[in-house]
């Protein structure tokens, strides 16, 4: 029975993340538009865009190689696998044990790796800029993530997300290090998803763009898949923050269907809150210069390190 | 007395003497070279016979574990060097650097030198040893000056002055030893014979022995080429004919060292006397480090390796100074390996200098490409002298450094420092000489690589495998040296 439940939960989760991620984007845009006193596109707009792109003809640059064509699918696959392993509404996922937090980070890392390569494949200047900057951000964001992972997993005594979530849910006490970790993870999340102030998702002809520069040459279904992947990434980070720091309402390992339903509802609510906060944050800040991003991410790294040190020291006492 | 006539050691002294006499009258230099070769060869065979005959004890000559090693080694190197010199002088004649008269003189003195050195090694009393060493010195002085160029004369003169001062000091030390022995052993010959001296060493006046050793160490040390008495060595090596450089580095230094070792044994036998160790260690270290730094600024290929001889003599002196079974063993091994390797180096260097028509390091490049045999021969032998495995020097250096470091780390560290600095210099020069775009050569020589190959083969073999009887000897000798 539990096996079936777990399988169901896993399948459910995989579909759920896929379905919800563009909606989250759409919701954020909507809220932003509203805050800017605009009507804004409907919340489902990202899905419409995806469908439209999928229907469109795909144009490839002459110099594009096989790598360029297969990159979108690989990126999508890695991100999706990662997203479907993080507990969103239930901890008892069928396959949650095949990759722990560090592995999740690494999966996102491979997505970035492939994306950066794809950016360089056509041999245009924009792609190069994008990949180069992405690489630098990544080389700061990843260690920061790892440090944050250290903090939570040292506290929870495990790097398994479901274990961590369960621990946080059961006996959660307020710790400074956890606070550091939270702030750090938020900073990383913003940077990784190319949101303001690090990058501006809604521009193209700006020399400071990063993510958009890499996918400049993509069109049609390839672009659609990549967009979906980035949406998934945003969702993944949100649900990471949610399940690690606000783990209430997660359905337990062998919970009932009702519990799962409850979990789903709460999860959607969490997403909504996150999207709203993100929108508010984005409209209230300006984009920063590219070379300041390293300092910005350095803060996250420092927070993670401080948190880890604190944990280490408190352990000894 | 009859047994005395049959002694092999007599032959070892007699053959070269006879050959020398024959060579004085021999005018055809090719024939002379052959006689020279044959005589050295026979001498070497007799030395080999010694191996099987073992100890001998005569009134003037004697053979024991210590000098047997030296004799075999020196006759071997004497032999191979004579092969080398045969192919070397040919070119000297062609280029007219040596006249026929010179050559007669050269060959005769060569044999006299061998004779003197064998005598020095086999002499059973300290007086005779001293005399033969002086003769050896004078002959080499003459041979260094054989080219009659200003430089060679200067070198020979310096060698003569420093050498005879050293030898004089050694004589004074010898007399002192006699005077120390005389009250115990009574007047006369007994007080100069090694066996009796060693037997009664404990009863001698310690203070007198100390003073004596100061003179002997400095006197014979001059001929060993230890700093600060080394000054004659580089020029003598550089300006004389290359076979003589080979003999100097390969033999004469060892013979002088042999003398020092004998007296060291004497002092070690006497409990009250100062242990000679510290003195040897100090001089040894001084030589190693000094020579190591001197290597850097050399532009003359023969001077370069002369300084490396100083360095290695320093190492050997250091090893014997440290003492103990392992270090003494290492010292003997190192001495053997060094004379083989260094003479091999001079064999190749001699031909290289002839081929390139210069001794300037800066004007020789890319030997491995232009002359593969000579070039790689040089590379291998220099690697050997730098103590690279699997060649013999590595084993001895391994033993010296490790055994010393186990006992007195603060002594091993400067030694290692010296080794490293010297290696830096030699490697730099070697890469310059052997690799890169080759420079032009002036002429070809039909170099006989036999001696080179033989020496390197022995060194390689010794680095991997030491025959048991050799080991037992070395260990006996090491025990004698205390």
């Amino acid at each position: 029975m539990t096996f079936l439940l777990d399988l169901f939960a896993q399948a459910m989760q995989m579909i759920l993340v896929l379905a919800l991620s563009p909606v989250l984007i759409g919701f954020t845009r909507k809220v932003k538009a509203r805050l800017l006193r605009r009507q804004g596109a409907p919340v489902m707009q990202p899905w419409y865009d995806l469908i439209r792109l999928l229907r469109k003809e795909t144009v490839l640059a002459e110099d594009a190689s096989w790598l360029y064509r297969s990159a979108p699918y690989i990126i999508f696959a890695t991100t999706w696998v990662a997203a479907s392993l993080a507990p969103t509404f239930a901890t008892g996922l069928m396959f949650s044990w095949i990759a722990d937090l560090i592995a999740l980070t690494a999966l996102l890392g491979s997505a970035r790796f492939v994306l950066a390569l794809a950016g360089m494949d056509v041999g245009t200047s924009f792609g190069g800029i994008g990949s180069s900057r992405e690489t630098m951000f990544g080389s700061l964001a990843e260690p920061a993530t790892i440090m944050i992972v250290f903090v939570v997993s040292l506290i929870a005594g495990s790097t398994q997300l479901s274990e961590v979530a369960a621990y946080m849910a059961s006996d959660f006490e307020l710790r400074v290090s956890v606070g550091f970790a939270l702030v750090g993870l938020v900073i990383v999340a913003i940077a990784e998803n190319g949101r303001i102030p690090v990058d501006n998702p809604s521009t193209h002809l700006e020399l400071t763009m990063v993510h958009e520069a890499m996918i400049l040459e993509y069109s049609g279904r390839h672009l659609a898949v990549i967009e979906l992947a980035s949406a998934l990434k945003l969702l993944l980070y949100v649900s990471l923050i949610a399940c690690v720091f606000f783990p209430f309402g997660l359905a337990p390992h062998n919970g009932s269907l009702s519990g799962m339903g409850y979990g789903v509802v709460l999860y959607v609510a969490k997403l909504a809150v996150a999207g709203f906060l993100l929108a508010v944050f984005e409209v209230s800040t300006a984009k920063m210069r590219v070379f300041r991003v390293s300092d910005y991410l350095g803060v996250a790294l420092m927070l993670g390190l401080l948190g880890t040190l604190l944990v280490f020291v408190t352990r000894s006492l | 007395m009859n047994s005395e006539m049959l002694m092999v050691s007599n032959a070892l002294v007699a053959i070269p003497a006879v050959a020398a006499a024959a060579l004085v009258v021999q005018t055809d230099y090719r024939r002379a070279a052959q006689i020279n070769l044959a005589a050295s060869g026979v001498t070497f065979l007799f030395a080999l016979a010694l191996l099987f005959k073992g100890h001998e004890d005569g009134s003037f000559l004697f053979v024991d574990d210590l000098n047997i090693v030296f004799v075999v080694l020196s006759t071997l190197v004497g032999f191979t060097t004579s092969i080398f010199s045969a192919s070397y002088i040919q070119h000297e004649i062609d280029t007219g650097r040596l006249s026929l008269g010179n050559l007669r003189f050269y060959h005769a003195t060569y044999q006299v030198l061998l004779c003197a050195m064998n005598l020095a090694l086999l002499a059973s009393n300290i007086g005779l040893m001293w005399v033969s060493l002086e003769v050896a010195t004078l002959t080499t002085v003459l041979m260094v000056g054989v080219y009659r160029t200003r430089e060679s004369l200067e070198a020979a003169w310096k060698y003569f002055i420093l050498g005879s001062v050293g030898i004089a000091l050694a004589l004074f030390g010898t007399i002192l030893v006699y005077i120390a022995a005389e009250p115990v052993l009574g007047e006369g010959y007994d007080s100069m014979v090694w066996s009796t001296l060693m037997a009664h060493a404990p009863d001698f006046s310690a203070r007198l022995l100390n003073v004596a050793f100061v003179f002997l160490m400095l006197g014979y040390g001059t001929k060993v080429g230890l700093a600060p008495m080394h000054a004659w060595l580089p020029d003598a090596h550089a300006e004389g004919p290359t076979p003589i450089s080979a003999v100097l580095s390969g033999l004469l230094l060892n013979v002088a060292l042999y003398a020092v070792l004998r007296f060291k044994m004497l002092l070690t036998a006497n409990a009250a006397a100062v242990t000679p160790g510290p003195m040897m260690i100090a001089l040894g270290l001084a030589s190693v480090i000094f020579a190591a730094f001197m290597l850097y600024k050399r532009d003359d290929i023969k001077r370069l390796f002369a300084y490396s001889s100083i360095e290695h003599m320093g190492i050997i002196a250091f090893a014997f100074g440290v003492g103990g079974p392992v270090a003494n063993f290492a010292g003997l091994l190192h001495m053997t390996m060094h004379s083989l390797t260094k003479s091999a180096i001079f064999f190749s260097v001699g031909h290289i200098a002839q081929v390139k028509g210069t001794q300037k390091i800066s004007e020789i490049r890319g030997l491995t490409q232009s002359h593969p045999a000579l070039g790689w021969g040089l590379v291998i032998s220099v690697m050997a002298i730098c103590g690279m495995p699997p060649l013999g020097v590595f084993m001895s250096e391994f033993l010296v450094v490790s055994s010393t470091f186990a006992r007195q780390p603060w002594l091993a560290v400067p030694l290692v420092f010296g080794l490293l600095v010297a290696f830096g210099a030699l490697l730099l020069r070697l890469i310059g000489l052997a690799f890169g775009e080759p420079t032009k050569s002036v002429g070809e020589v039909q170099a006989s690589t036999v001696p080179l190959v033989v020496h390197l083969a022995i060194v390689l073999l010794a680095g991997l495998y030491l025959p048991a009887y050799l080991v037992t000897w070395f260990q006996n000798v090491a025990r004698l040296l205390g």
Partner: protein
Amino acid sequence: MEHLNLDVAQLLAGSLVLVSFMLLYQDRLSGLINIFALHAVALTLSVAWQAYVQHAPHLYVTAGIALIFKATIIPVALRRIVKQLRIHRTVEIVGGIGPTMFLGMFLVALSLVVMLPATASADPFAREDLAFALAIVLLGLLMMVTRRNAVSQIIGFMSLENGLILAAAGADGMPLVVEISVALSVLVAFIVIGIFLFRIRERFDTVDLFELDRVRGEKR
């Protein structure tokens, strides 16, 4: 009587040291050679006296050798060489007589300090002789260090050898082998020196050793 013998021996040996000092500050070549002859004579006397005292006939031989070679042949030959080289008038600069003298004094003192306690066991003759001999050796060496003229260097060297012979003679019953060898070696040495002086002469037209240092095989 014993005492007298000792005094005479000391007197002669001491005179040798004195002559060594004279050698040390004599700066004219011809003069130097004469003093060297004197040195040899003094040596001969003291060796002879030793022979008389020790009743060791072979020492007379040594004395003879010393007299013949060192006191006559070598000085004569040297004088001839110097004449041929036309340098018998040359006055060489000896770095400050005063310091050299003091150094010499110090050396004599040193040799006494070293030798007397060392030879406590040996008999008094040997003791005195050894001390003086060492002094002579050191002085000879000092002379070689301070002189830059080939001839005077040789003289310094031979005075050093005289010291050795004195020591050898002082040692009771040292077999003849050694003295002869000494004498021979000195002879050989002298021959070599002669050859060299002429070679140097024919190459450099001088026996000033500073000239020699300029033709090192290896240039700075």
